[in-house]
C-alpha cells in the first residue's frame, strides 16, 4: 500500500452532510473487476449532466459547471473538505478507490461512517476528524480565498493553514502507523498464524457444529 506522510495542496469544499458512497461512486461503475480507473467517475451524478456508463470516455460528457469539482479554482485539488457522516451507506471500497484515483489522498470532515473510515486506511487515504466549528471556519476560508491550500502532516498530526497557523488532529496510533509505513494488514495478521491456529483448534472443540 502507498505510504501517506504528508499532503499539501488545494482544498476542495464539498459542502454537504451525509455524503453517501452511492454519491461518491454510483453503482454502474461497480461492475469493474479492477481497483483502478474510478477517478473519472468520482461523484459522477453530481459532476456530469448525463447518465454515466462504465468504460465510457468522459472527456466529452456535459459537465455540471456548478459542481465543485468542475470549478476552475479547485482543479488539481487533493484535499477534500466535507461535512458530518461522510461515506455513509454502502460498504463499497470503490469509494476510496475513486477518491484515490482522482488524486484525493486526504479528507477533512467532522465525522465519518464506520465502514468507509476503515476502508480509507486500507488505501493510503487519511480521513482527518476535526470539530464541526473548525470545519466551518475552513469552509469559510476556502470559499473566500481562491487557491486556498493546506498542508497535512501525519507524523506531526498537524494541519498548517496558509497564514501559518496550525490545527492539531487526533488519530489512533495503530492507524497512523499503517499509513506512515504503508503496511499490509494481511502480512501483519499472518504473523499471528500460530495464535489463529490455536484459537481454531480450541473453537472447534467447543463448537464442533461450526466445523462439520
Amino acid at each position, binding site marked *: 500500500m502507498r505510504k501517506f506522510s504528508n499532503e499539501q495542496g488545494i482544498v476542495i469544499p464539498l459542502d454537504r452532510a451525509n455524503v453517501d458512497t452511492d454519491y461518491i461512486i454510483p453503482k454502474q461503475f461497480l*461492475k469493474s473487476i479492477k481497483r483502478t480507473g474510478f477517478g473519472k467517475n468520482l461523484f459522477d451524478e453530481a459532476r456530469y449532466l448525463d447518465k454515466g456508463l462504465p468504460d465510457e470516455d468522459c472527456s466529452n460528457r456535459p459537465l455540471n459547471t456548478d459542481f465543485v469539482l468542475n470549478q476552475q479554482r479547485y482543479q488539481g485539488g487533493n484535499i477534500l473538505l466535507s461535512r458530518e*457522516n461522510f461515506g*455513509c*451507506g454502502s460498504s463499497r*471500497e470503490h469509494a476510496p478507490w475513486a477518491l484515490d484515483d482522482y488524486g484525493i489522498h486526504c479528507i477533512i470532515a467532522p465525522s465519518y461512517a464506520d465502514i468507509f473510515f476503515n476502508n480509507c486506511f486500507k488505501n493510503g487515504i487519511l480521513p482527518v476528524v476535526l470539530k464541526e466549528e473548525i470545519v466551518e471556519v475552513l469552509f469559510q476560508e476556502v470559499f473566500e480565498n481562491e487557491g486556498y491550500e493546506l498542508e497535512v502532516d501525519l507524523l506531526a498530526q498537524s494541519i498548517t493553514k496558509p497564514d501559518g497557523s496550525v490545527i492539531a488532529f487526533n488519530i*489512533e496510533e495503530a492507524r497512523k502507523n499503517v499509513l506512515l509505513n504503508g503496511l499490509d494488514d*494481511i502480512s501483519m*495478521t499472518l504473523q499471528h498464524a500460530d495464535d489463529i491456529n490455536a484459537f481454531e483448534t480450541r473453537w472447534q472443540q467447543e*463448537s464442533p457444529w461450526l466445523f462439520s
Partner: protein
Amino acid sequence: MAGKTLYDKIWETHLVKDLGGGTELIYIDLQYIHEVTSPQAFEGLRLSKRKPWRSEANMATPDHNVPTTLSEREQGVEGIVDPVARIQVKSLDANCDEFGINEFTIDDPRHGIVHVIGPEQGRTLPGMTIVCGDSHTSTHGALGALAQGIGTSEVEHVLATQCLQQKKAKNMLIKVNGELSSGVTAKDMVLAIIGEIGTAGGTGYTIEFGGDAIKALSVEGRMTVCNMAIEAGARAGLVAVDDKTIDYVKGRPFAPSGELWDQAVARWHQLHSDDDAVFDKVVELEAADIEPQVSWGTSPEMVVSVNAVVPDPALVENESKRANYQEALKYMDIAPNTPIQEIKLDRVFIGSCTNSRIEDLRAAAAVVKGRKVADNIKEALVVPGSGLVKAQAEQEGLDKIFTEAGLQWREPGCSMCLAMNADQLGEGEHCASTSNRNFEGRQGFGGRTHLVSPAMAAAAAVTGHFIDVRTLSVS
C-alpha cells in the same frame, strides 16, 4: 461486576489476540461473498500467492448484477445481456472454482440474494461471527450472530486469515416497548427508529434490538430490522436468541443435526444480554406510537408517518439540517408541507434483502388481491429474495395474485434496490420501494425513492398513491 451484553459475549468468544492500542484480532466463522465486492479480493490473493485460510468457511452467490427477467435467466450466466455484468458474474464462478468456495450459481434453484439465502440454507447460525463485502450483512444479526459489512480489502483479509483486525464497538440497546398496531410492520418500526436516532445515530455502536415488540416479531421481521441497522450508522444489529430463532434454524440444510444440534442449542440459549448488562446508550420507543412510515427525502432518516405532511425546512432550526432538507426536497421535487398521500408515484418495487422473504410477499399479496395496479403506475415489480422464496410463493398462489393485479413477477436478485441490472427508475420518477436506501440516484439516474413496507408498497401500487394500508380492506 456488571453482566455482559450479547455483543460482548460473541466478541469475547471470538477473540484471538489483543493487538494493542484497542485493536483486536477476531475470528470469523463465516464469510458471504458476492460478485461485486470480491473480484479485487481474489485478485489480491492471486498476486500475493495466498490461499484461503479455510475455504469451507465461505459461501458465495451472484446477486447484485443478475437480471430478473425469465427470458434472460433461462439461459443462466450466458443470458446476462450486459457484457460487463456477465464478466463479473463469470469471474465469481471462476474464482470460486479456483479457490474451492461453495457457490450457489445463478442457475441453482437455491440462488438468491446472499442475505436471504444464507439464513434460508441454515448457513447463518446463532453466535457466529459473519462478514460480507456488503453493508446489509447486519441482516444476519436477527439470528443472534455478529454480522458486519466490510470493504474489499477486508474480504481479502478474511479469505487469507479467517480473521478481522477490529476495535470493539460500543453497546447500544434500542428497546421497542409494547405492541405494534395491526398493519404496522417491522419495516415501519425500523424506519421510525432511524427517524428517531438519525443515520449517524448508531455510528460506533453495535445495536441490540430488544423489548416486547421485537420479541413479538418473526425471525423474518427481525431480519428486516437488523438489515437496516446500517442505515442508522451501526455496522451490526443484534436480536437475542429465543425459541423462535431456534425453531427457524432447525432442519435447514446446513444446520447441525443429531447430537451436534443438541449441543448447539444448549449454547445458543446463552445468547442474550445479561439482566445486569450495561449499555453505553439506551433508546426506548413505544410500538403503539408507530404508524406506517414513508420516506420523503434522500436519506433514510427523512421519514414520516403516511398520515403526515412533508416537513418544512424553514421550521428546522439547525442550519446544516435545514440545508439538507432543502437539498433533499429539491432533488425529490416535492414542496414543503405536501401531504405524503399526495406525492405522485410512477413505479413500485417490492423486493431487496430488506423485504423479499415469504412473509413480505404474503403481506403484499394480501393487499393486492382482487385489486388492479393503478393507471399512473408504469411498472410494479415483485422480486422474490431467492429461488426457494419464489417457489414457495408460487405454491401459495401469490404469483397469480400479483400478475392478475398487473404486477410483474420476476426472478430473484437485488434488482431495483441498487439498480445495477436493467431494473431502474427513469429520471425524475418516484418509486414506492421496500428497499433500504433512498439516496440520490440509488434506484436509477435521477430516480426518487420512497422507502415503505411491503404492505404499503402494495397499497401504493393499487391506489396509485401512498395510503395508510390500515384503511384498506385486506383479504
